[in-house]
């Protein structure tokens, strides 16, 4: 019956059901309280970044790029703004190295862009970023070429299949198989109207070239003998050249296609790498880098190709610095642009002297990795250049002549770890200061107070500026002026410190649209997810970055100064965690090694007694070796910063199960109420245990996922559940907070789709039974039977895959939680109120009056979340949000949420509405207006009434 309904009814029903529990973004707060840093990622390869006219006939070109996060798109070269983006596939940061071999973009006909990722080919409209067509091949694409006269895109697959796709429709025009599927195709070259495909034969380790007719796909000729040697490897070469390139150990060999003429260039053993460039079919440009331990050398050579003969032209001189080259031809001649950290120089094909040089205003923050440049020679002979340079710190800058026009913080798309830093925590809170003043004697307290007041004078200009602003704010929203130092009374201002894979640490400001506050280099060229042990907020605005190598970087997160760099001998397999002193402000990081009998480490190596005290009450838990379970240890500090580690318990998974994740309660997770008051005024007491860990594993053989709730002090399994018919290849994510956990997986059961399961844990199944919650000393070592919680679950069907789950945190935990979900298919960050994900919702019946009073409503299996209203990111399109982190603000109602992955998205959310702060909807003008109106009205009426009264008396 349901199905006969218009689907619209269904949406409306879902919308009306959830209107109460969904928290939407106010239209006047959108784009003000939230920010998004739209990122592409670091440009992957110089041949996949280029300037290109967006539409035929239009002047002005856009900058197209393909990033290490598989995002393609167009950037406006004038201001660095994003024009459009598309994501070709999923890829982790660690995989970026490999991607340049399987992903690339090329210019195509009519202002279009063709992209390749592995076996997927797509043609994009360069101006709008809309797909024209997509085609997925049966094998990895080796190379492709656009044949303009034939209107074809010819694709060579790794296995030797060659397919011609019609540019207009995406349909196959012809296909052929070269070399019976045994050869590996690598490169197309177009010479005249003959299409050359270079292949290697793995069997004979030889290269061969096949000539293919573009119109029909017929194989016309094959060249093997006399051209290639047995040890030659193919070198990718611009398609425009009539050459194929290959190399052996110390030569770069260039064969003129269709002939046996080969030019061999000697390559010095010091040469670290070389790159071939061409913009026309008669000029080849080779750049070389040589790296010796103490210096980097770079140089380049021009070669001309005339009558099938390759001859050397001018050489661009050696330089003892890292520089990169780009070749460009914008109609006024062929120019090579050389970029290093301090200047840009232009060379032409005529002489080895530079024709122009531009010194940059400041040294670039990192060495350039590659550059694309456009050089224009004006009629008067003046040279102008613009170059998009990808730097070794992962960012992209655009240089016009001697100016840096913009910088895109693309390294943030390759972040491997992130942590919040409280900015307000650094300044002593007023409360603390006042307590300190109370404690000291009268004179010192007075002096302290006066000095504090003098110190606070620095906020005066900002306050006056803000005063003006708040007056103006009466008459409508104003955009805040670029702030002088001003206080942040609500604690909205947090820095998010990211460690990027390029070895840099960068902080962004959540209160200032995600602007980069500072960035520093860790003097590492590459940090992958596995290389980082963690980034820890160490209190007082200090962050620690701990690498697997044992390096510890202590950074002042407010200024971005490196405070200390030290190294301890951490084994790569050791787990690093923070231990806080229960009494003082001291913190340590401890490393727990995997091997039994091996000592651990703690750092800093001070206040041993405090650490002993802190550790005597704690059990450290970590993943067991090769992620086979959780192991618990006790630790005792000894001399020299070492820890004696004693295993106390371990929970190991059965051999057929693989671990997915371990979730623990957030570090800041206050529980405001120990129970839940029901409609009949009885209480369900929550199961509150700060040492909960939720371990999720799956068994590939049975398609089941297993959940184990573990007490990390005693190692007791408190609760388990199993989900059968799960698709274990799709994401399984979980979050745990307070007395509940939520997880999501894809179910292949009757109710197929992504399921969101919520479990609430209570102390007892019976009402008004606090269990042992109210006892003074609750210990994890008590009898397990008595400590096991009572769990209630509900499962919901969710329409989209969820790749990340998190929960909001507020200062006191009074505010209702919201569960945050990253839904990449919609490009949204959704928030679902915990009241909706309530396992006590009545099933199959309407709620009773008592249940209604409690706020429960009827359970519906389909969690019909309104994508619009539930979206914290509203109309913004988020790319690749992989992790969501939250932190409380100083307002109880507000939690600060930051999602990161490719884009960085940050917002503030009020799951229970903004009950402790006046929103933007508070109309100051109306308030003042009505007060004035009443005042004016009284003034007017008073004489009138008096007159009437007097008149009345006279009349009496």
């Amino acid at each position: 019956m349901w199905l006969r309904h218009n689907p619209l009814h269904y949406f409306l029903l879902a919308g009306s059901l959830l209107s109460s529990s969904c928290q939407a973004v106010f239209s006047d707060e959108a784009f003000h309280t939230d920010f998004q840093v739209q990122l592409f990622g670091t440009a992957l390869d110089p041949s996949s970044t280029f300037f290109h006219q967006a539409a035929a006939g239009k002047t002005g070109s856009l900058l197209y790029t393909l990033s290490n996060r598989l995002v393609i798109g167009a950037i406006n070269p004038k201001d660095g703004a994003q024009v459009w983006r598309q994501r070709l596939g999923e890829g982790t940061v660690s995989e970026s190295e490999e991607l340049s071999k399987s992903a690339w973009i090329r210019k195509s006909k009519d202002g279009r862009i063709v992209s390749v990722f592995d076996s997927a080919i797509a043609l994009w409209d360069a101006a709008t970023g809309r797909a024209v067509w997509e085609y997925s091949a049966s094998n990895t694409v080796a190379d492709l070429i656009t044949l303009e006269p034939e209107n074809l895109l010819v694709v060579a697959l790794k296995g030797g299949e060659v397919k011609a796709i019609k540019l207009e429709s995406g349909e196959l025009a012809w296909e052929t198989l070269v070399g019976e599927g045994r050869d590996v195709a690598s490169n197309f070259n177009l010479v005249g109207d003959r299409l050359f495909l270079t292949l290697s034969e793995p069997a004979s380790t030889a290269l061969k070239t096949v000539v293919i007719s573009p119109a029909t796909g017929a194989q016309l000729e094959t060249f093997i003998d006399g051209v290639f040697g047995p040890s030659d490897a193919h070198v990718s070469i611009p398609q425009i050249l009539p050459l194929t390139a290959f190399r052996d150990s110390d030569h770069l060999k260039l064969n003129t296609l269709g002939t046996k003429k080969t030019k061999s260039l000697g390559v010095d053993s010091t040469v670290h790498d070389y790159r071939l460039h061409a913009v026309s079919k008669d000029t080849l440009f080779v750049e070389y880098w040589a790296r010796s331990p103490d210096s980097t050398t770079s140089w380049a050579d021009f070669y001309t190709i005339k009558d099938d003969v390759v001859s050397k032209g001018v050489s661009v001189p050696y330089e003892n610095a890292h520089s990169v080259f780009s070749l460009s031809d914008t109609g006024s001649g062929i120019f090579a642009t050389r970029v290093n950290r301090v200047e840009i120089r232009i060379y032409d094909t005529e002489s080895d002297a530079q024709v122009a040089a531009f010194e940059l205003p400041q040294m670039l923050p990192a060495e350039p990795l590659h550059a694309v440049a456009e050089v224009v020679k004006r009629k008067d002979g003046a040279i102008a250049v613009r170059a998009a340079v990808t730097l070794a710190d992962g960012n992209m800058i655009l240089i016009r002549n001697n100016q840096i026009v913009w910088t895109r913080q693309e390294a943030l798309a390759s972040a491997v770890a992130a942590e919040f830093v409280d900015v307000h925590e650094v300044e002593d809170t007023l409360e603390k200061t006042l307590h300190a003043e109370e404690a000291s004697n009268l004179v010192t307290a007075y002096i302290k107070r006066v000095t504090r007041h003098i110190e606070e004078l620095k906020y005066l200009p900002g306050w006056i500026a803000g005063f003006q602003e708040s007056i103006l704010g009466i008459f409508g929203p104003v955009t805040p002026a670029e702030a002088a130092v001003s206080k942040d009374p609500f604690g909205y201002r947090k820095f998010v410190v990211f460690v990027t894979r390029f070895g840099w640490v960068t902080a962004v400001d959540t209160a200032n649209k995600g602007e980069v506050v500072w960035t520093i280099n860790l003097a590492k060229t590459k940090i992958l997810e596995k290389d980082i042990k963690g980034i820890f907020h160490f209190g007082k605005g200090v962050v620690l970055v701990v690498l697997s190598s044992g390096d510890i970087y202590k950074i002042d997160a407010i200024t971005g100064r490196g405070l200390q760099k030290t190294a301890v001998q951490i084994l790569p397999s050791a787990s690093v965690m923070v231990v806080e002193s229960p009494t003082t402000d001291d913190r340590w990081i401890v490393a727990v090694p995997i091997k039994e009998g091996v000592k651990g480490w703690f750092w800093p190596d001070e206040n041993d007694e405090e650490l002993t005290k802190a550790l005597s009450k704690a059990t450290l838990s970590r993943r067991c070796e090769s992620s086979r379970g959780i192991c618990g240890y006790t630790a005792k500090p000894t001399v020299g910063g070492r820890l004696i580690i004693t295993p106390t318990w371990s929970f190991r998974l059965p051999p057929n199960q693989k671990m997915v994740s371990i979730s623990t309660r957030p570090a800041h997770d206050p529980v405001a109420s120990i129970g839940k008051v029901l409609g009949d005024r009885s209480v369900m007491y929550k199961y509150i245990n700060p040492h909960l860990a939720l371990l999720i594993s799956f068994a590939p053989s049975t398609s089941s996922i297993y959940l184990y709730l573990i007490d990390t002090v005693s190692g007791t399994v408190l609760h388990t559940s199993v989900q059968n018919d799960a698709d274990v290849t799709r994401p399984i994510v979980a979050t745990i907070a307070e007395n509940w956990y939520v997880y999501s997986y894809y179910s292949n059961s009757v109710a197929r789709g992504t399921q969101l399961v919520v479990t609430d844990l209570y102390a007892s199944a019976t009402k008004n039974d606090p269990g042992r919650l109210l006892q003074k000393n609750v210990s994890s070592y008590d009898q397990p039977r008595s400590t096991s919680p009572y769990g209630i679950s509900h499962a919901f069907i969710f329409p989209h895959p969820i790749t990340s789950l998190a929960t909001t945190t507020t200062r006191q935990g009074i505010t209702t939680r919201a569960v945050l979900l990253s839904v990449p298919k919609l490009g949204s960050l959704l928030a679902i109120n915990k009241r909706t994900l309530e396992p006590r919702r009545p099933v199959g019946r309407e709620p009773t009056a008592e249940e209604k009073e409690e706020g429960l409503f009827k359970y519906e299996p389909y969690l019909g979340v309104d994508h619009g209203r539930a979206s914290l990111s509203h109309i913004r399109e988020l790319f690749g949000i992989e992790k969501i982190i939250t932190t409380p603000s100083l307002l109880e109602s507000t939690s600060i949420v930051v999602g990161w992955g490719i884009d960085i998205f940050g917002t503030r959310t009020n799951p229970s509405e903004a009950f402790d702060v006046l929103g933007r909807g508070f109309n100051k003008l109306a308030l003042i207006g009505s007060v004035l109106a009443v005042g004016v009205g009284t003034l007017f009426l008073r004489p009138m009434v008096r007159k009437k009264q007097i008149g009345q008396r006279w009349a009496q």
Partner: protein
Amino acid sequence: MASILLLRLTSFLLLAFPVLINAVNIVGSIKPNNILPSLNLIPPSTTLSLSGANLADSRTSRVYTSGTFRFQDVKPGSYLLEVNCKTHLFPSLRVDVSSDGLVEVYGTFRGNEWDNKGERKPHPIDISAVKGSDFYIVREGFNPMKLLSNPMILIAIVAIGGMTLMPKMVENMDPETRAEFEKQQQNSVLSGSQNNPLQNFDMAGYLAGSSSKGQPKSGNGSKRK
């Protein structure tokens, strides 16, 4: 060799991947309607997903510039087709591909039991938007019209209107009825005023700020007379 077979692409239902004869292409288009007048309004990143029993069989397609979409090499099975669009909502469809390459399309929705098929739809598939996404709550400002339409306010207005109009109406009455009316009024007023001391409260005086001492005096004075 099977892969050398050249199969011409037919109009919509086609076998493009010669090795797997059973795999079919599922095609269709997004049709503009009054909710979505132009396909340029949906973001370029809008995708359609065809979710099968496992991830390897699932397919994704973007919406092409022509408004069409295409899932290539779909293996036999039962799929859920959804449009993942930021700005508009589209109905979900169930797509069944039989082993002989027959494609059947049905309307469906999430949370429906999978065996329960909906209305049969044609292939190639046409999908139209059913609703635009609504992201924001607009704060309700002060609205005089809304205030006036409140029934309590309406009653108050009628009452005030009656109070002001009544004396005039009384003036216009013919003398006999007027006298009768006044008599009636006086009776009721007198009985009321005697019972209710508040009736004598001098509101105007109070508002005008004359001292509270003066008020009872004036009240008493009027009574005495």
